[in-house]
């Protein structure tokens, strides 16, 4: 199926030697005008692309302090060079974070700095040519904007910011990426990334309600467009559509039901994800975020709860208040927005949920810190809550939990390899190779501690894992949602599981389980 080789596990992680141009190429499919125009981009390379490029670059330098400072302050110390999973997996030196930044920095120096204007050779500045633009396109679509490099950079330089700026500039000269733009366009037209129309969504949710009734004997509601619910649930559309995502959705439903929180999804804003982040476009991030505000107002909810999704949670946690706030019309006694894990964790702390961990005894779990949660947002009220809370929830749901190697978790976590708008089939080689470090860490715990499954809290991670796991010799369904574990373990009041466990009314329980 693949025309490339899956990298081999190394005996132990070492810094690879560089291999020039392994990943040279054209990059992912370029978008077409039909997808671009709604987003405010031209769709094709204009005549005066060079001026436009530099103009946009100057504009961004004046708009983002991050970009301006990062262009100047890299000391070329090389600390970041071995930190990117794409470099480790591909060995292409242009996938070293600093080299990736340098693609733009070389042009920045040539046109925006004194030294580069007069001594380009000395400081490694280059002219802007179409080749350079192509190289940008290729390599800035080999960065999942995971920020791992910035954790290790002594200057705090975040390559993701540079990547976003580069993609924004590229889009402005008609070199946008098809995958992301097509999806954003679908969000504008239909309401979610997948293009699930309201009718289909309703059908799925009704199906789930039936299933719950059958399985637990409890009327767990999966509302859509219900006005007057307590909470608006924002979750990635993948949670309605894909496996194992949907098992997570069932978990949210059970938890919220058990806590007596009425909730609904909105057909208008049926997508938590915000791909505007990937293309680095402030306007689009804001436009997409605004739907949430509108839905919350229309449905008259008191709180907004986000499902398991890394990039969605980053935008929600860090930007939503800025972009679509102030949310003074919501109940201020809850965090705005709140993560479903914060809800579940809080309830567990207060002893409001009954968990039967034994349900998950056949599993030995480990946890993949989804990088956008780990390095770009927070949960709970203290720094690092984003690490402790998911683990606490997992450990409340199952008896066997093991962490992967300390250098590959928490804020040093390795990206799954599919984030940042790269979760597309045309980048499969990159995705598989970029998954190497994560797979190695997983391999280690499967061998040493008998780990069977890995949980994640991001829709992209889950999809990416289902693709990459088989390449590395694991089972495709080893990836699970955290709330899938919760869903298995939770004992809802009045459910068949509760009766079974408590032995009350055995006959009835028996007769029901038989049919």
């Amino acid at each position, binding site marked *: 199926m693949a025309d490339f080789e899956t990298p081999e596990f190394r005996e132990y992680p070492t810094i690879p030697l*560089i291999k020039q141009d392994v990943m040279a190429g054209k990059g992912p499919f370029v978008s077409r005008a039909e997808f671009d125009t709604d987003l405010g981009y031209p769709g094709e390379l204009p005549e005066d692309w060079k001026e436009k490029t530099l103009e946009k670059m100057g504009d961004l330098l004046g708009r983002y302090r991050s970009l301006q400072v990062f262009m100047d*302050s*890299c000391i070329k*110390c*090389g600390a970041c*060079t071995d930190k990117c999973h794409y470099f480790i997996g591909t060995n292409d030196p242009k996938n070293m974070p600093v080299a990736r930044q340098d693609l733009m920095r070389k042009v920045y120096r040539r046109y925006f700095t004194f030294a580069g204007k007069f001594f380009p050779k000395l400081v*490694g500045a280059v002219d802007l040519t179409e080749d350079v633009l192509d190289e940008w396109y290729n390599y800035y679509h080999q960065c999942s904007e995971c920020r791992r490099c*910035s954790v290790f950079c002594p200057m705090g330089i975040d390559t993701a*910011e540079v990547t976003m700026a580069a993609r924004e500039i590229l889009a402005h000269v008609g070199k946008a990426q098809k995958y992301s733009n097509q999806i954003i366009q679908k969000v504008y037209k239909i309401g979610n990334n997948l293009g699930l129309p309201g009718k289909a969504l309703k059908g799925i949710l009704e199906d789930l309600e039936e299933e719950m009734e059958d399985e637990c004997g409890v009327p767990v509601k999966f509302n859509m467009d219900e006005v007057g619910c307590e909470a608006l649930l924002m979750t990635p559309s993948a949670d309605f559509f894909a496996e194992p995502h949907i098992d997570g959705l069932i978990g949210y439903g059970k938890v919220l039901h058990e806590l007596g929180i009425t909730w609904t999804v909105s057909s208008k804003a049926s997508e938590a994800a915000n791909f505007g982040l990937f293309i680095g476009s402030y306007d689009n991030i804001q436009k997409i975020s605004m739907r949430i505000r509108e839905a919350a107002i229309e449905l008259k909810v008191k709180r907004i709860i986000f499902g398991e999704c890394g990039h969605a949670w980053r935008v929600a946690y860090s930007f939503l208040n800025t972009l679509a706030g102030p949310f003074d019309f919501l109940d201020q006694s809850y965090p705005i927005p709140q993560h479903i894990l914060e809800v579940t964790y809080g309830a567990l702390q207060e002893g409001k949920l009954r968990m039967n961990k034994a349900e998950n005894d056949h599993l030995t779990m480990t946890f993949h810190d989804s990088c956008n949660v780990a390095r770009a947002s927070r949960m709970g009220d203290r720094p690092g809550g984003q690490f402790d809370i998911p683990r606490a929830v997992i450990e409340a749901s199952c008896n066997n939990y093991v962490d992967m190697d300390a250098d590959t978790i928490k804020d040093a976590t390795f990206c799954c390899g599919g984030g940042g708008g790269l979760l597309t089939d045309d980048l499969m080689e990159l995705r598989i190779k970029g998954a190497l470090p994560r797979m190695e860490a997983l391999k280690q715990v499967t061998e040493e501690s008998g780990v069977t499954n890995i949980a994640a809290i991001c829709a992209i991670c889950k999809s990416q894992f289902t693709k990459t796991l088989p390449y590395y010799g694991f089972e495709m369904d080893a990836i699970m949602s955290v709330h899938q574990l919760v869903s298995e373990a939770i004992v809802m009041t009045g459910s068949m599981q509760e009766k079974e466990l408590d032995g009350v009314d055995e006959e009835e329980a028996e007769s029901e389980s038989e049919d």
Partner: protein
Amino acid sequence: MSAFYALLLTVAFLVLIIGLSKKIIQYSRVPAPLKIPVTPAPLTKGGVAVRLAKEAILFAALFRSNKWTWLFGWMFHMSLFIVLLNHLRFFITDVPVLLVLLQNVGEYAAFTMFIGLTGLLVRRIFVARVKYISAPSDYLWLILLMVITLTGIVMRFISHTDIIAIKEFSLGLMSFNWQDLPTDFPLMVHLFLVAILMILLPFSKLLHIPGLFFAPTRNQVDNPREARHISSWAAELDAEKNKVQPK
């Protein structure tokens, strides 16, 4: 010769101050429209100060990242800091007691600085990854600093210059009362290169000095849910969109 150096050093100093100030003003003017601290990040301003101090003084991130680079880089920077403190005695008449004490130990900082620089240069030449990302200027900076250090060492430990005259010269510089400068070769080289360094600093990667403190990934407080973060042009953009309001 003295006049040339006096002029050179004065110009260099002015370039340094003006150039650096312009950059710092630029950095503080460009908005940071979104909250992008790398988490886990501190929740308070005090916490941010501690975080930045750890980075500036201990090079904490670099330590996590690469122990060898940290070793040499930190050795170089701390030594440089001590050397610069020691240099204060050329420019102030009342040297504080602490500084006098420091100078006993401090004179050897030149050597640790040189070792640090050598380590960094060796790494740049022999580690393929680092070599790949290095432009000619990256080597030249290290060499420039090594030569400054070497000439300094020569003056201090091998062929002594007339410190008294120099002190007069530098004090004179500061009061625009130009004095004669001894014309020792190491001193000439030393001062010339120092002037070059001061002139180039605002246009080079040495902008990492202010850059570190302006990086939004490190200097932002992690409180986006608690406090609404709005920057200038983002606010304009906000106003344009007539936002839906609850009825």
